[in-house]
């Protein structure tokens, strides 16, 4: 049956064509190994170095030219680039990867000597009443529309949640002509008063970048409201209004035609977890991160992890971590080569990690305890917070049992949107309920068109 899949070979497969994967693939190929770089998207770059389509680049210019340069180097180094290729499964410590062509559905198999998972992250959402209304989106979606497509997500936009990412999104929205009704930051990362003037962060390390964004926002008259949050969104067929709650109990209703809410990022860890890699809880206790050493080596021999999927640390750290993992793979697979010195990269990685830890402290997550019972948590299966709490409170169910009892996490997104919330809600009990901290990773990692499997075999 395996013969229905066309197989190919490479020394190393790099899964994910974002900053970590690109940097890693380049080092590996320059080191003389055959490298296949796989990405589900039809272009390289990942989220940060996302490519603007060629037709729009001609009109609007190159987006993040550093990404263009990096991709050019990767192609020149003769990395085999396979975009539009979904890695939906893996076995044998990642030495076998199962793929699907996103356009044709054709199945494939790649055999490697080592695999680097550089699968990045997705945005962290937290449910509130009305969050499933059309027009309620992630900040990343708004950024994508503004930067790639040059389309404002709305005319009167409300941005909310927490994290430094809200600032560049707001600036990108202004650039395409959207009006920002409010920028609502849950925490207090920015100096009071100063933020309105273009302000500064309390921590000087983050000063330059954030200050630039804050200055732009101030120039456009956008004030960052700190210590406030979205309570609920309203609308019939799409969002038309939102309630903003302030710390003093004041509630303000704003009219809006696009509400963007995000709480930072969640690592996309399905591939390493599928391969049985040791994991540990992240500081929120609702994610399981692959346990890695300084070079991205995991507990699974031959499997390496780099970039945000090993813990959110941002684009710079992803690039450095990608290079470190690549050097570790080179030392392993090409021991005859003189190993490259990596002390400098490791120092840089440590410093960037400290930077990320700082951000975690500046932008803590809100508690899930106050999600109202009637709020939908699992968007796909329409399961409410109350149903999840009820299942957990029987005392019979750990997280997996809660999923089985409620169907939360069983829909087409496979629990990616709600998994961390279900974990937080189902983990409220004591004892064994604390044991399971995230949904199991299963094949297929994404819903897989079945045409190829169904048609691929003759009757013996």
């Amino acid at each position, binding site marked *: 049956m395996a013969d229905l899949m066309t197989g190919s070979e490479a020394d190393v497969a790099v899964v994910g064509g974002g900053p970590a994967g690109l940097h890693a693939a380049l080092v590996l190929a320059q080191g003389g190994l055959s490298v296949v770089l796989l990405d*589900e*998207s*039809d272009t390289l770059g990942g*989220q940060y170095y996302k490519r*603007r*389509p*060629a*037709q*729009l*680049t*001609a*009109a*609007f*210019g190159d987006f993040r030219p550093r990404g263009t340069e990096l991709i050019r180097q990767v192609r020149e180094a003769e990395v085999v680039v396979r975009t539009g290729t979904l890695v939906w499964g893996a076995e044998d410590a990642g030495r076998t990867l199962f793929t699907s062509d996103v356009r044709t559905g054709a199945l494939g198999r790649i055999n490697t000597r080592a695999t680097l998972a550089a699968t990045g992250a*997705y*945005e962290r*959402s937290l449910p509130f009443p009305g969050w*499933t*209304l*059309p*027009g*309620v*989106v*992630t900040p*990343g*979606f*708004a950024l*994508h*529309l503004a930067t*790639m*497509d*040059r*389309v404002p*997500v709305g005319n009167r936009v409300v941005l909310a949640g927490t994290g430094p990412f809200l600032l560049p999104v707001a600036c990108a929205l202004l650039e395409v002509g959207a009006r920002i009704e409010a920028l609502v930051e849950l925490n207090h990362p920015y100096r009071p008063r100063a933020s309105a003037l273009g302000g500064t962060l309390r921590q000087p390390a983050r000063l330059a970048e954030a200050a630039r964004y804050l200055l732009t926002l101030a120039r456009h008259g956008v004030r960052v409201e700190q210590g406030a949050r979205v309570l609920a969104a309203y609308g019939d*067929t*799409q969002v038309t209004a939102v309630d903003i709650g302030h710390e003093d109990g004041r509630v303000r209703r704003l009219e809006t035609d696009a509400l963007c809410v995000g709480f930072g990022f969640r690592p996309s860890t399905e591939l390493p977890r599928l391969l049985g890699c040791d994991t540990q809880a992240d500081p929120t206790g609702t994610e399981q991160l692959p346990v890695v050493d300084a070079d991205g080596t995991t507990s699974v021999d031959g499997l390496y992890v780099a970039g945000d999927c090993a813990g959110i640390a941002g684009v710079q750290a992803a690039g450095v971590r990608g290079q470190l993992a690549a050097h570790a793979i080179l030392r392993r697979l090409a021991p005859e080569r003189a190993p490259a010195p990596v002390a400098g990269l490791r120092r840089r990685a440590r410093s960037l990690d400290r930077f990320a830890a700082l951000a975690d402290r500046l932008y803590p997550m809100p508690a899930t305890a106050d999600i109202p019972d009637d709020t939908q948590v699992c*968007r*796909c*299966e*329409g399961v409410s917070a109350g149903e999840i709490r009820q299942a957990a409170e029987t005392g019979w169910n750990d997280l997996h049992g809660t999923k089985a009892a409620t169907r939360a996490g069983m829909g*087409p*997104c496979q629990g*990616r*949107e709600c998994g961390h919330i279900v974990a937080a809600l189902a983990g409220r009990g004591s004892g064994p309920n604390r044991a399971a901290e995230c949904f199991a990773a299963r094949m297929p990692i994404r*819903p897989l068109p079945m045409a190829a499997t169904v048609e691929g075999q003759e009757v013996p």
Partner: protein
Amino acid sequence: MSTNSPPQTVTVTIDGAPGQAWAGQSVTAVLVAAGIWPLRRNPVNGQLRGPFCGMGVCLECEVTINGRPGSRSCTAHVTDGMDIRTHTEPLPTAAHG
């Protein structure tokens, strides 16, 4: 390379009505620009849903593109003559027995 020349325009059909878009734009962007937010109904509760994550994870933005149902509009790009269909009609039945 000039960065001033306007992008090339293509014609697409959204739910039977012709519309203009820039070649290369994502299908979601074209829908949003046309003010079309609800794209489908949740099969469990019938609620209207629209694009959410924009990166192919949530699958809320699925539409029918050139006759192919279940196409993610956020990761698809428009081409000239593309036929895009949303599915916001009420569900035939909530469940079946």
